């Protein structure tokens, strides 16, 4: 078999391919535009969440323009230069163009990357404000449990923290009876929901008893793995009252998809009432 110049069918194939690329590109753009991200993303309930949405939009615009230009460029080149018996241009490239698009993408991509760090720094590099509510959240297969420090604002040590020299054969995750800080700790056992006060800074202390889990609330735009052996802080200030789904985002075993709970964002009065209920139980 020898390919002849201007081989038959190349116009039809070129047209179909170019058309397909155009349709797939427009279809993707159509979904993004008519089903804009705010209809996919649930509304954010914290300032950081809004900033992450804005950074998402910036990235979407930049990548969207590149996506459309590259795909339509490909479709156009494919159709324009289909074989019709012409002889191809002989060229090994163009160094000026190489330098241009290297620098252009470098500035654009790295600039975007550096810009995104502001939000990251605000959540991850700043310590939580001293008046933040501190809540310990513990993952285990396949439930979340919580602990509040009580009026003294201090968490008591668990047995394994109070007596690190001991080898435990029974549950080491019990607050040590000798630690005065632990007397007023409120433990909400596996399967509980938890609550925070609206507009008040919160610092979660995320831990795990068994395997790695991940705390994820969509409306906060935040996710943090719960890693056994570590206590990982995560801070936020929720500004919209409501009840928000918590899910597990790190594969933790056969019940991974069922490991959910709720985060209530309450006014101070509602929170006080909720806390009273919890203490009474």
């Amino acid at each position: 078999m020898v390919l002849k110049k201007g081989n038959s069918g190349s116009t039809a194939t070129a047209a179909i391919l170019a058309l397909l690329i155009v349709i797939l590109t427009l279809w993707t753009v159509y979904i993004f535009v008519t089903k804009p991200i705010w209809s996919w993303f649930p509304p954010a309930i914290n300032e950081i969440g809004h900033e992450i949405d804005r950074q998402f939009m910036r990235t979407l615009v930049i990548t969207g323009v590149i996506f459309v230009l590259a795909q339509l460029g490909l479709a156009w080149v494919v159709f324009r230069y289909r074989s019709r018996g012409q002889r191809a241009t002989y060229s090994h490239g163009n160094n000026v163009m190489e330098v241009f698009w290297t620098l252009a993408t470098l500035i654009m991509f790295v600039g975007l990357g550096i810009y995104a760090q502001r939000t990251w720094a605000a959540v991850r590099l700043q310590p939580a404000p001293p008046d933040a509510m501190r809540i310990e959240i513990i993952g285990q297969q396949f439930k979340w449990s919580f602990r509040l420090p009580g009026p003294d604002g201090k968490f008591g040590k668990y047995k394994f923290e109070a007596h690190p020299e001991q080898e435990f054969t029974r549950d080491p995750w019990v607050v040590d009876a000798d630690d005065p800080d632990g007397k007023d700790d409120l433990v909400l056992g596996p399967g509980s929901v938890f609550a925070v006060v609206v507009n008040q800074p919160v610092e979660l202390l995320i831990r795990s008893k068994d395997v790695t889990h991940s705390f994820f609330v969509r409306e906060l735009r935040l996710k943090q793995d719960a890693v056994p052996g570590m206590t990982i802080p995560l801070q936020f200030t929720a500004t919209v009252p409501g009840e928000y789904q918590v899910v597990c985002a790190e594969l933790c075993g056969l019940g991974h998809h069922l490991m959910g709970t709720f985060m209530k964002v309450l006014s101070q009065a509602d929170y006080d009432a909720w806390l009273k209920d919890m203490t009474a139980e």
Partner: protein
Amino acid sequence: MTTHAGAVHAHEAPKGFIRKYIFSLDHKVIGKQYICLALFSAFVGMFLSVLMRLRLADPTIKLPFFPEGILPEQYLALVTMHGTIMVFMVLTTAPQSGFGNYFLPIQIGAADMAFPVLNMLSFWTTFLSMVVLMAAFFVTGGAPLGGWTAYTPLSALGEITGPGQGLGMTLWVIAIAIFCGASLMGAINFIATTLDLRARGLSLMRMPLTVWSWFITAGISLLAFGVLLAAGILLLLDRTAATSFFIPGNLVLTDKVIPHKGGSPILWQHLFWFFGHPEVYIAILPGMGVTSHVLSTFSRKPVFGYRAMVFALSSIAFLGFIVWGHHMFVSGMSPYVGLAFSVLTMTIGVPSAIKTFNWLGTLWGGEIRFTTPMLFALGFVSLFVSGGLSGLFLAQTSIDQYLHDTYFVVAHFHLIMGVAAIFGMFTATYFWFPKMFGRMMSESLGKLHFWLSFVGVYAIFMPMHFIGLAGHPRRYADGSGAAFLASMDPVHMFMSVAAFITIAAQFIFLFNLVWSIWKGKKADINPWQATTLEWSIPSPPPHDNFAGHEPTVYRGPYEFSVPGVADDFILQTTPPDKVVKC
């Protein structure tokens, strides 16, 4: 410049069936063995994905062998084995070990690989790895459920963490460790062959971009698989010898205190992703090489910016080793480290963009011939753009906090590392089949396969981005755990149907492949009018490739449409005085 070592390594053509087809030393037979293994594995992996998509479309579906439906733990075992088989046995073996084995020696004018026995050993070690991996399906508890990333301590604690985490998980670790050994052997062989066995006149900058991509991929393999091997051995020790590399103290599972202490679960993630991120490039670089090669051949133009392409491949390989932390932004790793990894990751978009621009530059002003390999190469470019751009979201620490471990990630890596790489393999298969078997594949079936696959993969993976944006976590057996997931059921249904159609289309490919081996039209030496060395020898090539003499190379690999020359291509081996002027 190398001496002509090629002839020294030639060995006698074997006589018996076993030495010829089973324990062959011939790089071409070994290449085909790898391709067969990958093809078999690809269909196994696809079958697993059919089961997964069935469950996602209808969580209560009853199937043969699953009388109670697919249980959540079985779904997770499918996820784990689909990922493992596809990443290791398909994406790592076919593009590099398969096509690389067959065509690297020929494209550099050598009679065989530098170490033929090592080559045979690396294939059979890979085969053994696949056997051990498949055995995990058949042991008590079944296959592991911890995902192909095998995060500790879920993967380290044994049966107590779930069915499949006992013997099945142990077999998984052993299979991966064996695979690492096989890949290291292969990598050494590829590097030595490329450096030592090039024909007279074939300087590094005259090598086809396919050879460059295999050579660089071998370098990545050599540095990456050693680390995974070490990690695998440590994990095996944690599981079997009561060590605690990855297991911290005071873990409690089903009210039992785990007798380990002092280890770090995050250590596993560092070791795994130090391998795991370069692995992405191990899968995609050969696809980039063959795409450049085929785009140039069928647009009848030299590769636009050959040097820039080589530098881009090299910088992707280098940067690939210093970005692994972007898999771990929310892992509990220091947030300062995340910051550094994020900016480094954004820079890897630069060489990727350079490659895309150069592909478009290659097509520009060409005389494009729409053969099936060309269609798949063009499809590769389109998918590479689509899959690559979503990486710019995930590389940003702040956005990743939302998108991490959602379906957005699944869509991203399937497009770029899965489907684009597989389009690279299809490109290679349709392009080199005439050389390998001396017959042409059917163009009409090939084109049908392309149209269905190209539309199909977009239909599967584009909507997947949107459920990721809506916060749907990955590796969920169903949406029953959270109310917001229920609204995404129709999207799951759409993706499942698209997947079934696309997978059905792959049988067209399988049929075309098998049918063409015996019934395809006879191919001559150079059916595509291409320029590199494999097109200067018979189809299929004889046992020692160049019939005992070493070819001489006179020019670069992509001399198409040279002004003043009668033909629109000049083989690398045509002496200057034999080039017909017009």
